[in-house]
């Protein structure tokens, strides 16, 4: 009986070894594929950059372009929940923030919240936000600004100071 078991075990072990050898995908195969993937990524990055520029030229020409950017005034643990932007008394952007977005803002990232077209002249801009302070208390504020649009593109930074429940604007 023990002899039969030994033969069975030997056969089983052989089959396992075979299965393991079949598992190996060659390193050259992996490297070759990886390099081709890197090439295609590079090409798509270049292509996307060109397409982005085409889109901007076509949809938001520089003479009418206006963009609003949201940033946090400091790296405090203020959790921004939502921001609403009204331009010419119309809501043009309303954004609810994900955890990753909040983290990115806290690290100093700047979110482009709206890009559109605007005729030259003065336009009222109203911004409101809701968020939570580190202690969990709700913070909210709203503020107004006048966007003076000239011939060139216009960029306005909306800087949110959560701790002070304040909003500051900066023309770029």
């Amino acid at each position, binding site marked *: 009986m*023990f002899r039969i*078991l030994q033969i*069975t*075990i030997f056969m*089983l072990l052989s*089959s*396992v070894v075979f*299965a*393991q050898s*079949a*598992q190996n*995908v060659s390193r050259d*195969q*992996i490297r070759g*594929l*990886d*390099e*081709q*993937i*890197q090439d*295609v*990524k*590079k*090409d*798509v*990055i*270049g*292509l*996307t*950059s*060109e*397409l*982005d520029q*085409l*889109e901007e*030229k*076509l949809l938001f*020409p520089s*003479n*009418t372009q206006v963009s609003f*950017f949201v*940033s946090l005034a*400091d*790296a405090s643990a203020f959790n921004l929940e939502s921001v609403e932007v009204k331009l010419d008394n119309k809501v043009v952007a309303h954004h609810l923030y994900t955890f*990753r*977005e909040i*983290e*990115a*803002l*806290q*690290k*100093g*990232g*700047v*979110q*482009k919240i709206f890009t559109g077209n605007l005729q030259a002249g003065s336009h009222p801009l109203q911004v409101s936000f809701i968020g939570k302070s580190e202690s969990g208390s709700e913070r909210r504020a709203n503020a107004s600004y006048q966007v003076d649009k000239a*011939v060139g593109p216009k*960029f306005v*930074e909306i800087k949110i100071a959560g701790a002070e429940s304040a909003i500051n604007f900066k023309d*770029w």
Partner: protein
Amino acid sequence: MRFRQVSALFGAAPSSLRVLAAVLGLLPGALMATAPAEHTLPSEHNLKDLFYGEAMFQAYQHNYFDAIVELDTELEQYHHLDEPERDPFTAHLGQAEFGVGDLELSYRMHREAGRAIEAVLKGDVPQPVRNEAAYRLAKIQYHKQQPRNALHALEMIHGRVPERVRPQEQFLRAQVYMELGRFAEAVAILDDLKGDKSLDGFVEYNLGIALLKSGEEERGVVELTALGKRSSSDAAQQALYDKTNLLLGYYLMDAGQLELARPYFDRVHLEGPFSNRALLGAGWVEARAGRYDRALVPWKMLQARQGTNEAVQEAMLAVPYAYGKLDVHSTAAINYGRALDAFGREIDTLNSSIKSIREGKFLEALRRKEADQVQNWVVALRQLPGAPETHYLLDLMASNDYQEFLRNYHDLNDLYERNESWLDSLKSYENLIDLRRAYYEPLLPDLDHKFRQLDARIKVRIEQRDKFAARIDQMLVSRRPEYLAKAEEQRALLSLKQMHAQLTPASSDSTRQRIARLAGVLNWRLATEYDQRLTDAYKHLQELNKEIEALQAVYQSYVRSRQAATQSYVGYNETIHRLRAQLQNTQGRLKTLMARQGNMLETLAVNELDRRRAQLESYQIKARFALADSYDRANELQEQREDQRKIEKHKASEGEPLPQDNPPELEAPDSQEGGEQ
């Protein structure tokens, strides 16, 4: 003899050794704990350029593709500026150039990242920047499993490395030395690095391994023991401590130090990723020491866990084996029976999983939107109907190569979808352009006509202005009152001139005097009012200038509007056609690469499932034989017990006094015998 046979049947010892080998790391890459990637993109609160901030917003969210595209575009535009040093982006240039390299590395574009960093190394940059670049290049080489090249890059570092990457650079150097088998040098570096907060735990782990490998086993065990005794609420940190304890437990068990090994297994947290292997190890330590009753405690706990786990499946055989050793063969037989049932079910699951993968459901699930939104999607996708049982693939998925394949597959799918969306957008753009052309083209002739009229008006005004300006300039040099005469005065002057010309010798003196007096009055007025009139004329010239400026503003506005109108639909077709062709070509390449990468993922997954199925089938056979053996032994034992019982009964019956007299029925009556005769 029996012990050896059963051990071989269960494959217990080889399995333990396999785990030990994996943990101790026969493969150098597997033996080291890699520290979490440092945040090479520093937080940015002193922003000088909005678009750099926007790229960072994407980068901080790990949206590497978007971040690279934005930074690349910014850098390209910056380098094409006439005076780039005046652009606010200059303040972030260095960070941006390094940032692109880092992002490319995170986006698994090692070659591009390497090129970008090599460009920095070749450039005229200060030594600290060069050192940081060399460190980053070394990191890429190390990541590509080229430790010699990584060391070569590290050797380019001279002098001080920037403080924020110094510990990482030293840690990388130690890892490279370990990969190259230069453990003593790694130990020296890691000894110095002890206490660094950013690498807490990882330094100690690698130091312990380096010491074990360099022959300083005693010190290595001490280092690892100290690390393993730590506790953390952070799951990743705790996993490192558990891994350390598991490694030491198996290391000591393999060295035959069974009494020392057990506490290490006990220290591993029961909820952690290493708990199953720790429970298995704890059981084997006891079993090897012959304490099968104590081995049953961790094994029975393990037996009740997730049935797809390799350690759990091994425990399903180990439990009845221990019962067998304790001569409780009936319980052993029951447990073997349960194990056989479980293995049968799992083999069915594996078969359907392999079928599901071959039908493409695995890749289909990987391509779903949830893949980006649900954490550990590759594990969670098992819940989809018809999807493979991914619990069997956890170990495979945890490997670096498989992770890279999975991410690459995701990236390719993401790029494919982005390009599809661009192709749709291009269609919309063409429609938009057609609409704009249809709207503007009929309007333009009329507008152009009005524009020509305006142009003519402007030209007239400009001529007038130029004439007046020239006269005023002249008058500033030489006095010319007649230039400032009003229309009626000019007419009067002309009439007087004509009258004067018509005078004849016969004309009276009073007429001559009258004409002269009138001319005198006019000249007097022009002469006395000259300064005022010159000032007024200058003011009028200013007003004319303003009028011309207003006309020119209208003109410029018209030019811009016309330009904007034409630019909104002219000159795009060629670009769109070219981009569409490029996109379509790229889509073809992406499809091919996705198919190849997908095939590799499927092949590896199927191979892994095949391996597990083969293992379960071997377990099944072992269990069947062991079950039969248990029955035999149980029967044998039962027979022995029965025999024993009979003997005891017999012995018990021997104690009674034997009957001395025959029972009456056996007594032969003498009279009857005689009578018959």
